[in-house]
C-alpha cells in the first residue's frame, strides 16, 4: 500500500488537486501534517474528504499538547461523517521547536500520547469517557453523534520507547525513517512492543513515513530533496548522525546556516551521505529499488513524504506508473 503526505502550507485547492490525482492513481492513503503555522489539518482533510470517495485520509500526525484530546476526537469524528471509514488519526509527540514557539512544554511525551490515544479511542467508539490520567483529567465526555466505529489510530514514532508504545496501543505505527537500517532497527522495537502486548504484526499496520523525491532525471530529484534533508540533518540527534557516519560538525554547520536563513549556502552543504541516510531520491528505477528493500523488511504502507518531487503532479504520475505497479502484481 502507498500513502502520500501533504503539507497544508499550500492552498487547499492544490492539495485537493493532488489528492484526487493520488486517488485516481491507486494510492491508498493521504496524510496531512499538523503544524500551527500552516492551514488547519482538519479543514484540509474535510475538503479532501468531499472531493474524494475511496482514499483514506488522516492527520499525520497531531500531538496531545495543542488541543485537548476531546477536541481532536471531535474533529476526527466529524470528519468520519463526511467520509465514513476513511478517516485516520495519527498522534505523536509533536515537534518541540514549533510547540516551544507557543510556550507549550511538550513534557512526558509517552504518557501524553498514551492518554491521548486512550481518550480518543473511547470517544470515537461511542463510549462515555471518564479518564483520570497523569496529564488529562476528563470528568465525563460523550459525543452526541455516532461515528462509523472504523477509525484507525496510528502512533507516530521514531525513538525506541515511542515505537514500543505504538506497537502496544496503536492500530498502526507511523515510523519516521527512510533508510533500511533505521527501519530495521525501528521494527525491532515495534516487535518488542507487540510481544509485550501479546500482539503480532498482523494486528498492526506498519507504515513508514519517508522523505521522498522522484523525477525522470536523478539530478532534478536530488535537487528537490536538498532543503528537506538539510532540515532533517539539522534536527537529527547525534546518535542518528553517527549511525550514518555523518560528521557532527557538518550537521552543526547546517544548523548555523539554517538558523541565519542562509538557505542557498545551507543546501549546498548537504552531502550525498546525508541524502542517502535521510531520503529516497532519484529516478524511478532508483526509487523502486529502495522502496522494494523497505517493503521486504515487513512494512505494510509506504508513505511518500515531502518533497515528493520538484513537480508534484509529474512525480505522482511517475510513482503511479513506474513504482506502484511493481507491488500490485
Amino acid at each position, binding site marked *: 500500500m502507498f500513502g502520500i503526505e501533504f503539507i497544508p*502550507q*499550500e*492552498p487547499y*485547492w*492544490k492539495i*485537493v*488537486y493532488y489528492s*484526487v490525482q493520488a486517488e485516481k492513481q491507486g494510492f491508498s492513503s493521504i496524510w496531512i501534517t499538523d503544524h500551527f503555522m500552516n492551514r488547519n489539518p482538519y479543514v484540509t482533510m474535510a475538503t479532501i474528504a468531499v*472531493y*474524494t470517495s475511496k482514499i483514506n485520509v488522516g492527520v499525520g500526525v497531531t500531538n496531545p499538547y495543542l488541543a485537548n484530546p476531546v477536541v481532536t476526537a471531535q474533529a476526527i469524528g466529524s470528519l468520519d461523517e463526511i467520509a465514513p471509514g476513511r478517516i485516520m488519526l495519527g498522534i505523536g509527540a509533536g515537534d518541540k521547536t514549533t510547540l516551544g514557539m507557543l510556550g507549550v512544554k511538550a513534557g512526558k511525551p509517552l504518557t501524553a500520547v498514551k492518554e491521548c490515544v486512550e481518550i480518543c479511542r473511547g470517544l470515537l467508539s461511542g463510549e462515555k469517557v471518564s479518564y483520570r490520567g497523569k496529564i488529562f483529567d476528563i470528568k465525563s465526555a460523550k459525543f452526541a453523534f455516532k461515528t462509523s466505529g472504523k477509525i484507525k489510530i496510528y502512533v507516530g514514532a521514531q525513538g525506541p520507547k515511542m515505537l514500543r508504545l505504538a506497537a502496544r496501543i496503536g492500530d498502526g505505527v507511523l515510523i519516521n525513517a527512510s533508510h533500511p537500517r533505521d527501519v530495521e532497527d525501528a521494527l525491532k522495537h515495534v516487535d518488542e512492543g507487540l510481544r509485550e502486548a501479546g500482539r503480532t504484526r498482523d494486528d498492526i499496520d506498519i507504515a513508514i513515513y519517508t522523505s521522498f523525491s522522484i523525477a525522470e532525471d536523478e539530478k532534478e530529484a536530488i535537487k528537490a530533496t536538498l532543503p528537506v534533508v538539510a532540515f532533517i540533518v539539522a534536527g537529527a540527534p547525534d546518535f542518528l548522525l553517527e549511525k550514518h557516519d555523518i560528521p557532527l560538525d557538518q550537521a552543526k554547520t547546517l544548523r548555523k546556516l539554517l538558523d541565519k536563513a542562509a538557505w542557498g549556502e545551507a543546501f549546498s552543504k548537504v552531502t550525498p551521505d546525508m541524502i542517502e541516510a535521510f531520503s529516497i531520491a532519484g529516478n524511478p528505477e532508483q526509487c523502486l529499488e529502495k522502496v522494494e528493500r523497505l517493503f521486504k523488511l515487513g512494512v505494510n504502507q509506504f508513505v511518500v513524504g515531502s518533497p515528493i518531487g520538484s*513537480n*508534484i*503532479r509529474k512525480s505522482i504520475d511517475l510513482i503511479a506508473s513506474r513504482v506502484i505497479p511493481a507491488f500490485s502484481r
Partner: protein
Amino acid sequence: MSNGGCIVELPENLAPEEKKALVDKLIDVVLALKPKKAHKVPAEPVKRMLEYWRDGLLHSDEGLKVLMEVAAAANEEKTAEIIEGFKR
C-alpha cells in the same frame, strides 16, 4: 469567446491529445503559483476546476474554460503564451 474575467480564448478545433497537453500545461501554471500568492486564484472558479478534475472532465470545453480562467488569474502572461502556442 467570453470567459469570465479571462482575456484569453480557447483555441478552436483541438484534437483530444492536444486538449490533454493543454490541460497539463495550464494546470502546471496553476500549481506553480507560490503559496503567498494563492489569494490571486478566484475562490468559486477554482472549486469548479476541482469538480471537473474529479469528474475527469477537465479536458472538456467547459472544463478547459474554467481552467483557463484560473490559470489566467494565477499567471495571465504565461497562460496567454501557452494558449497562443496551441492556436493554428
